[in-house]
C-alpha cells in the first residue's frame, strides 16, 4: 500500500508575496505528484515560480511571502500542518536540498569536514571520530579524490564542481526520500555539469530517492527526468512524461519554448521566437497568463484554464489545446 503511494504529493499550492506594491502570486495553484525514485524536471524561466515551489515544499518562505493554500504530502503526511521544529527535523533528513550557487551554499569559514559533521550531527548524535569516518565515506562516494586530506580543506580551495559534489553529499547524507535540486548545474562548466548530473542521478537511483530538478534548461530535463512540469508566471501550464512533453508539447508556451531553442531548425535562419516577455507578477490579471504572447489566444482564455488531462498522464492548462 505505502509503496504505491507517491512519495510527494503537492495539491493546490499557493504561495503569495504581500509587498508594498501589490500581491505577487509567485506560486498559484500548483499540483503534482512524484513516486519513489522518480525524477521530475520543474522547468520555467526566471520569475516562473519554480524555485519558490521548491522552497515552499521545504517551508522556507519568509515574509512578506506566505503559503496561503494547499497541501504538501510527504509520504502521506501534510508538511504544511507541521510545526517549525518538526520541519527542522525533516529538512536535511527526509528532504535534501541542493542550491544553485556552490560559492555561497557552503560557509567559507568552516572546513568541509566540519560542515559535513555538523549536518550529520543535526539529526543524530554522532561522535567526532564517527562523523569523520562517515564524511570520508561520503566524499568518496561523490568522487572527491583523497577525501581524508580534503576533509580539513576550506570551500574556497575546491573548484565549483567539487563544491557542488560536497553539497550533494551533505544533502544525501541522511538518505532522504526526496531531493530538491534548484539549478544545481547552472553555474558550472558544461563538462562538469555532465559529471554532477551523472552523480546525482546515480545516487538517486541507488537509494530510491525521488528528485525534483528545477532548471530552465529543457535539454537537461529531457535527458534525465521521468516527468516534466512546465511553469509560467506562477502557473503550472503543462505536465507529463518526458517523451510526451518534448515530442508532443500541447501548451503554446511549451511549444514556443521548444521551438525557440537553437538547433531545432535550419542554421542561420531566424529562430521562432516568442514575442514579448513574461508579465509582471504584481496583480496579474485573471485568465491565462500566457494570453498576451499566445498566437492562439481566444475569448475563452480570459478565464483561467484548468489543468486538464489531454492524454494519459499528460496535463495541459490550455482551453484551445484541450479542445483538440
Amino acid at each position, binding site marked *: 500500500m505505502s509503496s504505491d503511494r507517491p512519495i510527494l504529493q503537492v495539491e493546490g499550492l499557493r504561495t503569495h508575496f504581500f509587498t508594498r506594491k501589490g500581491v505577487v502570486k509567485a506560486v498559484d495553484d500548483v499540483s503534482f505528484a512524484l513516486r519513489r525514485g522518480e525524477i521530475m524536471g520543474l522547468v520555467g524561466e*526566471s520569475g516562473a515560480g519554480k524555485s519558490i515551489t521548491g522552497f515552499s515544499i521545504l517551508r522556507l518562505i519568509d515574509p512578506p511571502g506566505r503559503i496561503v493554500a494547499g497541501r504538501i504530502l510527504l509520504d502521506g503526511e501534510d508538511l504544511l500542518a507541521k510545526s517549525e521544529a518538526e520541519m527542522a527535523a525533516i529538512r536535511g533528513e527526509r528532504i535534501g536540498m541542493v542550491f544553485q550557487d556552490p560559492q555561497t551554499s557552503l560557509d567559507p569559514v568552516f572546513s568541509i569536514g566540519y560542515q559535513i559533521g555538523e549536518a550529520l550531527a543535526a539529526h543524530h548524535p554522532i561522535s567526532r571520530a564517527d562523523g569523520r569516518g562517515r564524511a570520508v565515506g561520503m566524499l568518496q562516494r561523490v568522487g572527491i579524490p583523497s577525501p581524508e586530506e580534503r576533509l580539513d580543506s576550506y570551500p574556497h580551495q575546491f573548484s565549483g564542481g567539487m563544491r557542488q559534489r560536497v553539497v550533494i553529499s551533505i544533502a544525501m547524507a541522511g538518505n532522504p526520500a526526496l531531493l530538491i535540486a534548484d539549478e544545481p548545474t547552472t553555474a558550472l562548466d558544461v*563538462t562538469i555539469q555532465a559529471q554532477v548530473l551523472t552523480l546525482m542521478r546515480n545516487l538517486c537511483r541507488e537509494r530510491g530517492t525521488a528528485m525534483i530538478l528545477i532548471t530552465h534548461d*529543457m535539454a537537461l530535463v529531457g535527458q534525465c527526468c521521468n516527468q516534466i512540469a512546465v511553469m509560467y508566471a506562477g502557473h503550472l501550464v503543462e505536465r507529463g512524461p518526458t517523451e510526451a512533453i518534448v515530442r508532443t508539447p500541447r501548451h503554446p508556451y511549451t511549444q514556443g519554448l521548444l521551438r525557440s531553442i537553437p538547433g531545432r531548425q535550419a542554421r542561420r535562419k531566424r529562430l521562432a521566437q516568442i514575442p514579448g516577455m513574461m508579465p509582471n507578477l504584481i496583480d496579474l490579471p485573471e485568465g491565462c497568463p500566457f494570453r498576451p504572447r499566445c498566437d492562439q489566444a481566444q475569448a475563452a482564455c480570459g478565464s483561467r484554464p484548468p489543468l486538464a488531462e489531454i492524454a494519459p498522464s499528460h496535463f495541459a492548462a490550455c482551453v484551445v489545446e484541450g479542445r483538440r
Partner: protein
Amino acid sequence: MSAAVPPLLRVEGLVKHFPVQKGFFDKLTLRDGRVRLVSQTVHALNGVSLTIARGETLALVGESGCGKSTLAKTVVGLHPPTSGRIWYGAEEIGGLTGAARRPYQKRIQMIFQDPFSSLNPRKKIADIVGLPMLVHGRSSRTARRTRVEELLTKVGLDAAYAERYPHQFSGGQRQRIGIARALACEPELVIADEPISALDVSIQAQILNLLMDMQEEFGLTYLFVSHDLSAVRHISSRVAVMYLGLLVETADTEAIFAEPLHPYTRLLFSAIPSLDRLEFREAAADGEVPTPIELPTGCPFHPRCPDVMEPCRTDRPATITAAPGRHVACHLYASGRR
C-alpha cells in the same frame, strides 16, 4: 581564402598574462614557516593565432579559464597584450593606445555579457547609447538624440525609452540597449562576449534573431564568444575552440559539429544535453578544468585526454591544417596521422 583582401582581423601569437599578486606587499607570504616572495601568473592567453574574414561570424567557445573573454577584451583594447600582434585590416593595432587607438575604437565595438552591470545605472538610456557618439565626434546634441532614437527602434525598443533608466528594463531589453550602444558609431567588427548567457531561453531566441538581423542590415562581422553550443551552432559560420589559453581546433561550423577532431572538442560536444536523444548519457570523462595559474606541461589537455600519448606530456602540439579551413593542435593528427 583570397590573398588579395586582408582579413578584417588577424591575431598572431597573442599572449596575455596577468600577475596574481600585484605589488610588493601582496607577494609576501608565509610558507613553510618562512617569509617568501610569491609571484604567480594567470596564463590567460598562451599564443593564439586566428583570422576573421569580413562578414563572417567566428564563434569562440570553451569553458571557464580558457581565455576566450580575455581574447575578446584584448582585441577590443581593454588589455594591452603581453606579446603577439594584432592587425585590423592592413594596419597593426596591437600596441596602440590613446589617441592613436581612437579610430579603431570606433570600428571595433563590444557587447557585454551581464545586462545588469553593462549599463551605468545612473545614466539615462539616451546618454548610454549616445556615449560612443560623444567620444567619436558627433557633437550636436540633437543629431545624437535622433540617432539614439533611430537605434532604439532598430533594436526593437520604443524610442521614448531614451528617457528612462536601466533599472526600468528587463534583462532582454537591456541587452538590446547594449546592442544599440555597440551599433552607435557604425562599427565593422562587433565582439559579442556571451551576449545571451544571462538571459532566459525565450529571450535568447529574440536576441539571437536581433543579432542576425543587424548583421544582415549593416554588413557586420561578429566574433561571438560563448559557451552555449546550440546558439553557436545556429549563428556562426566558423568555430574556434579554446582550452587554457590555446586554440585547439578551428573549423567551419558544419564540419566541426559533424566531426570534431580534437579530443577536447569531442568531450565538450558530448557533454551538451540535446533534445534529439532523450536517454541519459553518462559523463564521458572525469577531471577538473585546471586553472591557468599552473599550466600543465606539453599539451594543456593531456591530464584529461582519453587519447593521451607520450609526446603529449612534454611537447605542446603545433597547429596543423588537417583539411582546407580545418586546423587542429593535437599530436594525434601530426604528420598526417589520423
